[in-house]
């Protein structure tokens, strides 16, 4: 150190009074607390309020919202979750960067502060009103005048919003509703608001309004393709999954198409921490993703081929744990809890001697039984080889004689196989036949032998024997073509066979499944597979899942803590389900509510069906009956509706209120249907009588997020300008009269809406939050009152309802509404069509519902009398909340006058929260006890240990801290402070059947449509070949697989416009691509590129990265067009959202109904809005962009 520097350094001491380090390099200063006031001031605040984010995520994180001078400043996480036990990591802190950035919205420039409407519409409406028309007539005039109609519809999404008053907004909304109900019918009104669990009251209040007026709520879980159809197929359950704390219990964890750190951020720590307990983690994904970072092994798999890998693993598993050696735990498990021992009839394949195909489960009726529901009672062979009709199948669930017998108790050890062993020469060990099994990876059908018996004149085998045939696991003496070993690549489903398909080396597949099986054997089922959207959201996602679930069922992992499937896609579980359903459906006033599966609704009404250029039989099994050949997929939709398998809105080409005017509305409707004067609307969705007319979105950004086939929505449903490359001129445009959105921020949905209402944020209202991944419920609380002219959804819908009721009182009065109801799961309707076959002249289930249109607002604000009079149905049991209604009356006060006189008031959000908790089993032990007692009567088994009558959660508990729920028949797993939630533990530990045909978990699905599609057994189906399906020619441009996984910087479109998230990322829409693909189009990192296909165009910047595999690009989900999206070169118009390149493709097997677990329920079963099979052309564009 130079002298001068030394002097200066020493002098530095005197710049302030402080202690300098002996070596003169450090200045120490005591009393620093006086020294830096700025940050201390910055930290200070007036209060901290508990709330959370009602986003469509599985977070349900409780937050501290800081308020200073009446201003929301920031948020940090609460850490006071219920403990999960002293020997495991706790839930705290929970949260993610998206949630941490939420308060930005409160005062941001994208906040919607006032009601808005399109200027041209407001002007026309004002003119019509000014000319003396009443509101309804004014609305009718504008919407029926073709010129005016086109004027405001074409203006949708083009700006020109003007501020209006709440009074004018609610008047126009009410007029639109009254006009629609009067002219077209209430089922032409639709509401869309997803995922109630994230904010139950906000969802329920709008759904309650829509339901009370006879409108239809649209499903979301299936529409989002988050519904794993394999779950109803296999488990007879919508979806039930372990809480994230149960990952801790797993000794082997596979993450398959799930990027947990990004999509389950608050829970990812268990994955990290469980590794320290010796858990092995395997990640299977196409790219080197955030989760791979935690893996012990990372298997890079070709997108969409995961099923092939799982099938090959199943091959090894069956060979090594069921044939070469028998693992007692596995054998015992599958015999008791799965359909593997059940007998299946074999029928001769058309016109081919000696070649058979699997057909239906053998039933008691086949054995000649005449007893109740005999054709719903499945059969296996007992230890003595004699047929046994065991308890527990659906035939025992609903009838009088099934009481006490719907259970899984067994008096005998069922035979898994009919194979007699190898007697040294072929065939002697018993009778064998060759069966044909479809394959879809190229090559002709498989021909493989199964051992058979003849019972009741039918040739039968077991599901287990079919499984071995399907998986290609040969046993000596059985005829057919079989693989010679793991290394045989020519026959499915060997490890060598999957290698060229998946890119995963055969030896790694073998190694992983061996470890998996060994761990499951050693731990009795503590192996878990976390499944994500990467494997769900394919057209054939259900087959991929069934291949996964087979691994878990074969190794005894379901219904075990630390084991089983963990499907975390979407957020299906509103834990206090029953209370929410009561409020949301308005079931306390009238039943049933109208509910429609989203995917086929949009498929028909956005006219995407017209763009299906292929035959519905195109994807059928080559050895199926050919029932779909020559038909259009839309015809199959109509058939499912006619069969009563699935509802549709509108139902008929007539106003259901007019049908209700008949003396006997039901008889009249059936007669008119029979003689053809009345038709199903689904048969001609483009007839203006069959259009939806009013659509309300709240808690949702349909048009900036989930609308697959986005440009079809804009073009046909809205009549707006679009980027649709080749619109079908035959199809109508502009079906909707009114699109209404409630939101707190500007999105594609608000931009395209006719009227936009300013919503309160989640920090400005009371509500409840729960999820599938956590065993607690907790509260939203207002940190501030809604600022400007914003209102909570609750108050907004009440304002709408008041305006509507006032207008409707005289105009609509009291009417009878004819509602068509499908056969519902978990009701006796699920055994209405034996064999799954609808009668030739099927008549729909019709119910007449009285609508008192003047009383809608009053009904919304009171708990109606049907709550206790008809009870609260859930999963086949019914709660009777008589005491709860009294309690709610005392807690909430009684309505003093009107139709709700003397009923508990529901006039605030907090009271609605209170009602939801009081009316649900998970939060009210008295109701749960009722349910378990009914269940015990049906099963004849004991649920006493699950009953905790005194357990009760009130709203104040959830405001104080997240509160643990208790066991209830609403769900399949056990809940308690010392037990982590894992699905089906009640089934496994209390002999309770699954809600399926056999009462067991299903490998085999025998419905005719499953055979038609070749999916009766787990099977590998590759991603759709879109080029072939749509007859597209070859191109020398870069064609890539177009995937839309969930983003690190948003929850769907929410947060993607948040400045903090944009600052931490690339600040606008991006597409991730590999170095190789970027080189092919000459694009560098951050270059502007365009992706185009037959559905639309996307403009984005490229992120070039070596973590991406060649041939696949990622456009992360829901990058809305509102932020930094320039005009495209392809069309000269604004680029689209991620779903501009996708579209709806209906898988017919998802529409099966009326057949045990394959019966309809809202968000339980329905065609998925899958979107991952899509491809796109990508090219570099001019780097000069204009907005």
């Amino acid at each position, binding site marked *: *150190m130079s002298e*001068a520097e030394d002097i*200066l*350094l020493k002098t530095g001491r005197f*710049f*302030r009074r402080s202690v300098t*380090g*002996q070596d003169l390099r*450090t*200045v120490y*200063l005591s*009393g*620093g*607390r006086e020294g*830096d006031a*700025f*940050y*201390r*001031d*910055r*930290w200070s*605040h*007036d209060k901290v309020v508990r709330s959370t984010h009602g986003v469509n995520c599985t977070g349900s994180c409780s937050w501290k919202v800081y308020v200073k001078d009446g201003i929301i*400043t*920031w948020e*940090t996480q609460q850490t006071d979750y219920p403990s999960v036990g002293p020997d495991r990591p706790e839930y705290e*802190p929970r*949260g*993610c*960067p998206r949630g*941490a950035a939420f308060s930005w919205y409160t005062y941001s420039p*994208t906040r919607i502060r006032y009601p808005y409407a399109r200027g041209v519409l407001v002007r026309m409406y004002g003119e019509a009103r000014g000319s003396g028309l009443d509101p309804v007539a004014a609305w009718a005039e504008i919407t029926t005048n073709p010129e005016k109609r086109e004027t405001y519809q074409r203006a949708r999404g*083009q*700006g*020109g*919003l003007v501020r209006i008053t709440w009074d004018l907004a609610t008047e126009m909304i009410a007029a639109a509703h009254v006009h629609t109900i009067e002219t077209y019918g209430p089922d032409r009104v639709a509401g869309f608001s997803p995922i109630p669990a994230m904010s139950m009251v906000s969802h329920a209040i709008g759904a309650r309004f829509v339901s009370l007026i006879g409108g239809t709520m649209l499903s979301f879980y299936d529409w989002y393709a988050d519904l794993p159809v394999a779950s109803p197929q296999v488990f007879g359950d919508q979806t039930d999954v372990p809480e994230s704390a149960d990952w801790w219990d797993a*000794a082997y964890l596979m993450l398959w198409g799930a990027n947990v750190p*990004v999509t389950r951020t608050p829970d*990812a*720590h268990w994955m990290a*921490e469980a*590794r*320290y307990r*010796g858990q*092995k983690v395997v990640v299977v994904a196409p790219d*080197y993703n955030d989760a791979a*970072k935690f*893996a*012990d092994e990372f298997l890079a798999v070709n997108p969409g081929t995961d099923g092939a890998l799982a099938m090959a693993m199943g091959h090894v598993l069956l060979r090594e744990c069921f044939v070469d050696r028998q693992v007692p735990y596995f054998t015992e498990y599958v015999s008791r809890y799965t359909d593997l021992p059940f007998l299946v009839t074999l029928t001769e394949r058309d016109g081919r001697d000696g070649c058979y195909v699997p057909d239906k489960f053998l039933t008691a009726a086949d054995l000649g039984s005449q007893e109740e529901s005999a054709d719903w009672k499945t059969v296996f062979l007992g230890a003595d080889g004699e047929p046994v009709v065991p308890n527990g199948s659906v035939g025992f669930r609903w009838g009088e004689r099934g009481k006490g017998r719907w259970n899984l108790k067994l008096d005998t050890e069922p035979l898994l196989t009919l194979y007699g062993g190898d007697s040294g020469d072929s065939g002697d060990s018993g009778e064998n036949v060759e069966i044909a099994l479809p394959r879809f990876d190229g090559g002709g059908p498989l021909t493989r032998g199964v051992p058979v018996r003849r019972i009741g004149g039918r040739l039968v085998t077991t599901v287990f024997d079919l499984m071995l045939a399907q998986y290609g696991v040969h046993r000596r003496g059985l005829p057919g073509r079989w693989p010679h070993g793991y290394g045989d690549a020519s026959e499915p489903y060997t490890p060598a066979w999957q290698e060229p398909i998946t890119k995963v080396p055969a030896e790694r597949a073998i190694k992983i499944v061996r470890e998996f099986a060994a761990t499951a054997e050693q731990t009795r089922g503590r192996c878990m597979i976390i499944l994500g959207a990467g494997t769900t959201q394919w057209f054939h996602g259900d087959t991929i899942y069934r291949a996964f679930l087979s691994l878990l069922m074969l190794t005894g992992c379901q219904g075990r803590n630390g084991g089983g499937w963990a499907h975390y896609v979407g957020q299906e579980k509103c834990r206090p389900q029953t209370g929410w359903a009561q409020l949301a459906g308005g079931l306390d006033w009238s039943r049933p509510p109208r509910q429609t599966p989203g995917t086929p609704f949009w498929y028909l009404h956005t006219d995407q069906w017209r763009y299906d250029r292929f035959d519905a039989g195109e994807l059928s099994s080559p050895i199926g009956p050919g029932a779909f050949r020559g038909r259009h997929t839309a015809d199959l939709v109509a058939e499912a509706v006619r069969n009563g398998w699935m509802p549709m809105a509108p139902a008929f080409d007539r106003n259901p209120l007019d049908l209700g005017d008949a003396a006997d509305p039901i008889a009249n409707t059936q007669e008119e249907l029979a003689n053809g004067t009345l038709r199903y609307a689904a048969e001609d969705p483009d007839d203006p009588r069959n259009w939806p007319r009013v659509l309300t979105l709240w808690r949702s950004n349909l048009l900036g997020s989930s609308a697959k086939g986005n440009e079809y929505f804009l073009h046909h449903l809205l009549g707006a300008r679009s980027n649709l490359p080749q619109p079908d001129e035959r199809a109508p445009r502009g079906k909707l009269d009114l699109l209404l959105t409630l939101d707190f921020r500007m999105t594609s949905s608000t931009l395209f809406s006719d009227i936009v209402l300013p919503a309160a944020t989640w920090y400005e209202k009371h509500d409840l939050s729960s999820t599938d991944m956590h065993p607690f419920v907790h509260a939203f609380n207002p940190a501030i009152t809604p600022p400007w002219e914003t209102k909570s959804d609750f108050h907004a819908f009440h304002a709408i309802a008041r305006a509507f009721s006032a207008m409707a009182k005289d105009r609509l009065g009291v009417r009878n509404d004819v509602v068509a109801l499908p056969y519902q799961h978990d009701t006796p309707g699920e055994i209405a069509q034996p064999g799954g076959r609808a009668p030739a002249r099927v008549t729909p289930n019709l119910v007449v519902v009285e609508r008192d249109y003047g009383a809608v607002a009053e009904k919304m604000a009171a708990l109606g009398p049907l709550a206790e009079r008809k009870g609260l149905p859930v999963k086949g049991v019914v709660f009777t909340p008589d005491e709860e209604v009294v309690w709610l009356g005392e807690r909430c006060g009684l309505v003093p006058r009107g139709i709700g006189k003397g009923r508990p008031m529901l006039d605030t959000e907090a009271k609605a929260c209170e009602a939801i908790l009081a009316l649900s089993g998970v939060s009210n032990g008295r109701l749960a006890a009722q349910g378990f007692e009914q269940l015990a009567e049906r099963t004849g088994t004991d649920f006493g240990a699950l009953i905790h009558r005194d357990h009760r959660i009130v709203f104040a508990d959830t405001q104080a801290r997240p509160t643990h729920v208790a066991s209830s028949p609403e769900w399949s797993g056990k809940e308690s402070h010392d037990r982590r939630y894992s699905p089906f533990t009640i089934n496994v530990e209390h002999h309770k059947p699954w809600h399926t045909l056999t009462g067991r978990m299903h490998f085999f699905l025998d419905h005719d449509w499953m055979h038609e599609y070749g999916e009766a057994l787990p099977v590998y189906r590759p991603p759709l070949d879109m080029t072939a399906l749509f007859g597209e020619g070859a191109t020398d441009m870069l064609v890539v697989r177009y995937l839309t996984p969930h983003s*690190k910087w948003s929850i769907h479109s929410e947060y993607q416009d948040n400045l903090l998230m944009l*600052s*931490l*990322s*690339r*600040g606008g829409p991006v597409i991730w691509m590999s170095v190789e693909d970027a080189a092919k189009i000459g694009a560098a*990192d*951050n270059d502007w590129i365009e992706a185009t296909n037959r559905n639309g165009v996307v403009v984005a910047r490229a992120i070039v990265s070596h973590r991406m595999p060649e041939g696949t690009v990622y456009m992360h989900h829901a990058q809305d*067009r*509102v932020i*930094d999206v320039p005009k495209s070169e392809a069309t000269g118009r604004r680029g689209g959202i991620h779903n501009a390149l996708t579209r709806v493709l209906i898988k017919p097997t998802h529409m099966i109904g009326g057949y045990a677990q394959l019966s309809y329920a809202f968000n339980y079963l329905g065609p998925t809005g899958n979107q991952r099979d899509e491809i796109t052309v990508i090219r570099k564009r001019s780097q000069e962009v204009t907005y």
Partner: protein
Amino acid sequence: MSPRVMAQLAMVMNLDKCIGCHTCSVTCKQTWTNRAGVEYAWFNNVETRPGQGYPRGHEDQDRWRGGWEVDAKGRLRLRAGGRVRKLLGIFANPLMPSIQDYYEPWTYDYENLTRAPLGDDVPVAPPRSLISGEPMAIRWSANWDDNLGGDPSEDPILRKVGDQVKLEFEQAFMFYLPRICEHCLNPSCVASCPSGALYKREEDGIVLVDQDRCRGWRMCVTGCPYKKIYFNHRTGKAEKCTFCYPRIEVGLPTVCSETCVGRLRYLGVMLYDADRVGEVASIADDKELYEAQLSLFVDPDDPAVAASGLPDDWIEAARRSPVHDLIMRYRIALPLHPEYRTLPMVWYVPPLSPVVDALAGSGYDGEDADNLFAAVEALRIPVEYLAELFTAGDPVPVTAALRRLAAMRSYMRAVNLGEEPELPHSGLSAEDIHDMYRLLALARYDERYVIPTAYSNTPGAVEEIGCSLDYDGGPGMAGPFGEGSGRPVPVSIESFHGLKQRQTGEETTRDRVNLLNWDGRGKPAGLFPPKKGEAS
């Protein structure tokens, strides 16, 4: 000679648990820097490695010349030169990252979405610079290379490691590195400041900028090799991570720690010998700095500690310090860039990673459950890369730390599966493994954060803030270069201290009822007039 024992609040981050979610960055920013002048500043940021980081290439000390170096005579000096050189270059500093190296902060025309007149296309919000207000094209951000986005080959560490690493899909690896101020024992920022505005708090070692004294020379920005001091271009002051001292003082974890959903941050007290700081920082061989820094730390049970005059609760906290255990007992936490010689006090547990594909299929890591986990040598993240970050290139301590993590996993797997565990050779006893497992896996809140409060022994500190004028250079007093201090106007809001004082001190409650902080028990003091005979 008996050590001069001082206490330092330190942090350890377990990178093996970091999910790269950036929640810490956001909660920190929301709490501290979501205001004009520091839009670009992230006191806490998370970098994907390999990657250039933020600001771009900050670890390239050949360019930025941050930290210290040892001269030919073995003496420690600032790498960018001493204060004289700094003062000469005070108006033109080539060693300062430009705003483009951080990133040009931006916003969007959000209001266009609501206000756009009827046109012929969908309204959009294009980006605008927050510096100039003009439309801009976004070319860099605070986290541009997140998840290996773009080309990481410019990563200064990667360049050091050289051709051993191929940036190809088959060999892809990454991990996340959250960074805050290191609150160094030998802070080069403090030594760089010509105004004496930077200081290290005596009681807890937190390094702070005195906003009153800062003259905005920005020498600290250059001096800090971690580039964790930011210039507020609105106030003209330097700002930096404060270790959330207003929270720490009352026993609350820093915002970044408490909000860390990976639960990977640990806070605790480290005791060190303040007299040996210079000696240790001057050790000739970079590779010896890690061990040397360990030697600086004083065992809380050392008799010298009892004689040090440190408050009992601090000594007790040092005994229970999770940070001490991770650094000293298990030796799995390592310093970030010890070769900068600042003796950083935010340490890191290095990350495990998947095995390299080429080795996985060959049965390299065994097929029996006993050997389910791969050997450290087969992991995708090259040990050399980690060594360049944490041990000045010496792979030995990194490998040892990773082995201990791996040993814990295989040991605990046996326990988990009900087998008889075998103690692997890793230098850890069975008790160590159990305790380490408890700290890393269970990571209970009260064991992650052991923070003594600043109150108990310093009653004088509990005062309303903003009035400590009694020092040289206070408000109105000219600084050494004759500039006004630009003292920020305190927001007239109550602080914790004020509130606490008001609740407990008779002086204020008599005149003012504070229902906001009334705990709901009994009646709040001062709400009702005193009854007759009751003391007022």
